[in-house]
């Protein structure tokens, strides 16, 4: 039983991370209509900025806040300079641009901060909290789950109840009509990038204390976050976050209980998603998106 609970906690711990990452993906998808493959690498880059600040003796919380701000601005600049020229391009071309960004950002992080593994301090505490005999949970895990909840609430509230959130959604859904009702689509797109990068930065500083920081840190969470987002529905903040948690728990359980589970956990996650998508193409909680024609 303890073993099962321990696996559950491990699953929730990584699931919480996938969930924040998935929220960043939801943010960018809802506000631009694209899934940014470079989101994970951007999060890693942000985390390196936070690491640099911490090395300069900036306390962890101000460092995180500053990093989120820098990432927000950086992503807006990136959108303006690199992504904007492709606003009207074919989807395939946009994906190619994301691939280019993915490679560039990954490599830049490696060139600037090298590939050595770096410890990263937890924003909460490095200790553990004992739940019962032989079972404990990292304080960081609890903290990052709470953070996931907070980010989720904020994102949900933002899209649901703020004019800005509504405008962002409108801009992504239909450029032309949004323009007609007076929404500045160009500002909205940039804002979507900025917000997604800010959430990504939070995801990064939550991941790094668990996995250690190196340029390769973003790939595994990105894949499982994508899986989570597809599972829960990439248009639904709640669905994507829940999807992330489910994928995390599933990964831990498959690794622990299924023979060859460790080798096939990615494939199993993939098959699970495929089967859900076959029944519900928009994911568990997603809304069916009518295609722009």
């Amino acid at each position, binding site marked *: 039983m303890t*073993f099962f609970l*321990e*696996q559950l906690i*491990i*699953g929730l*711990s*990584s699931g919480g*991370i996938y969930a924040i990452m998935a929220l960043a993906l939801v943010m960018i998808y809802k506000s631009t209509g694209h899934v940014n493959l470079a989101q994970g690498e951007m999060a890693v880059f942000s985390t390196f900025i936070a690491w640099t600040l911490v090395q300069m003796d900036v306390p962890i919380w101000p460092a995180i806040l500053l990093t989120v701000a820098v990432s927000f601005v950086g992503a807006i600049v990136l959108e303006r300079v690199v992504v904007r020229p492709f606003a009207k391009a074919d989807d395939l071309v946009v994906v190619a641009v994301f691939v280019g960004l993915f490679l560039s950002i990954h*490599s830049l992080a*490696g060139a600037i901060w*090298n*590939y*050595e*593994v*770096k*410890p990263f301090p937890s924003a909460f505490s490095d200790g*553990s909290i004992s739940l019962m005999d*032989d079972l*404990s949970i*990292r304080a960081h895990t609890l903290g990052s789950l709470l953070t996931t909840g907070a980010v989720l609430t904020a994102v949900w509230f933002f899209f649901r109840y703020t004019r800005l959130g509504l405008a962002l959604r409108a801009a992504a859904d239909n450029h032309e009509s949004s323009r007609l009702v007076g929404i500045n689509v160009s500002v909205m797109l940039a804002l979507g990038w900025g917000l997604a990068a800010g959430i990504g930065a939070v995801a990064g500083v939550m*991941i790094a204390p*668990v*996995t*250690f920081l*190196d*340029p*390769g840190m973003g*790939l*595994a*969470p990105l*894949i*499982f976050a994508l899986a989570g987002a597809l599972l829960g529905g990439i248009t639904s903040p709640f669905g994507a976050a829940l999807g992330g948690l489910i994928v995390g728990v599933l*990964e*831990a359980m498959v*690794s*622990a209980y299924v023979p060859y589970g*460790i*080798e096939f956990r*990615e494939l199993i996650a993939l098959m699970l998603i495929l089967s859900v998508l076959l029944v519900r193409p928009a994911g568990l909680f997603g809304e069916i998106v009518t295609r722009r024609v």
Partner: protein
Amino acid sequence: MLKSTTALVLGLTLASGAMAATYDKGASDDEIKFGTIVPLSGPASAYGSTGTCIAAYFDMVNDKGGINGRKVSVSVQDDGYNPAKMLEQARRLVEREGVLFIAGNIGTPTNSAIHRYMNQRKVPHLFLTTGASKWDDPENYPWTMPYIPSYAAEGRIYAKYIKENMPDAKIGILYQNDDFGRDYMDAFIDQLGDESMVVSAVSYDTSAATVDSQMSTLKESGADVFFNVASPKFAAQAIRRAGEIGWDATQFLVSVSNAKSAVLEPAGLDHSTGIISTQYLKEPTNPAYAEDADVQAWQAFKAEYFPKASDGNWWDWSCYSTAYTIEHVLAQAGDELTRENLMKVASNLEGFEAPMLLPGITVNTAADDFAPIEAMSLMKFDGDNWALFGDVIAVD
């Protein structure tokens, strides 16, 4: 014995110096060209600094006047840790750029892809930074020679130690699911001779985020000895996790991942206390070697030619020993810079004291023995530093 060989080699060098110099492709009166292929992009980039290091080392050699009056030019190529790309790069170096030999490459799957090619072409494929046992096979592959001790040999050392000191051990193994992990584990179990001592062996894949789940499985198995066969990042995660979940097994850690600053410090020094590992090199961060001539020479080299290097990154300083040995072989080859002669010199090193090697460990090769370093020492982490214990152990 040692002296007479040196004298003999010296004599040969002098003798050949008197004759006209002979060259193969890639060598001339004023230049020696060789190549090294490492991952400089992609997921294995952490190991790529070996290539940068070797190139920097020969910058230093050239600044000091080169080798026997010849400048050495090193062509460092990127294979992205992809076997297909490795073959492309090796063929480019050999057939297009015309290098004399290739040395210092990283990786088992990548070097496997060129193993046959290099031997068919009869181009030296020297001092590989990979510990697969298959590289030491002079009969079938007389042109390929590794540098570092084989993973299998090291795995056997731990197995022997456990059999002697804790015969009732219940062992749990965490291993990386590739040739590196398998080589260690297979030799380890083979040496134990009793498979039932291993109560649990779980793998992880390098694409994983953490090994937390595996560590719980290992603890659950009731093991009281933990054999940690992981690359640095995952080794650190495993050590930290073992501490967190209160699994107080006796830990054995493979040498690739025993750097204090890159593994033990991230994992937590308190969690690392008591870990047993092996070493054949002098780790620059260990205060025991602060005054050591080799380490000081390395520090001087680093300061001037390789400022990006880090004391904690195994790949950044172990390569110094490799590069020095390459230089030694080239110097010994004198004016007979043929591929055949290079292999002759490389397979005739006796008691060669390469830098960074622990006292009592030397480079030894022979026509039927292509394993340069065949001795290691056990050590234990005392909470602050590694402390060697016992004698230097010869492996074969």
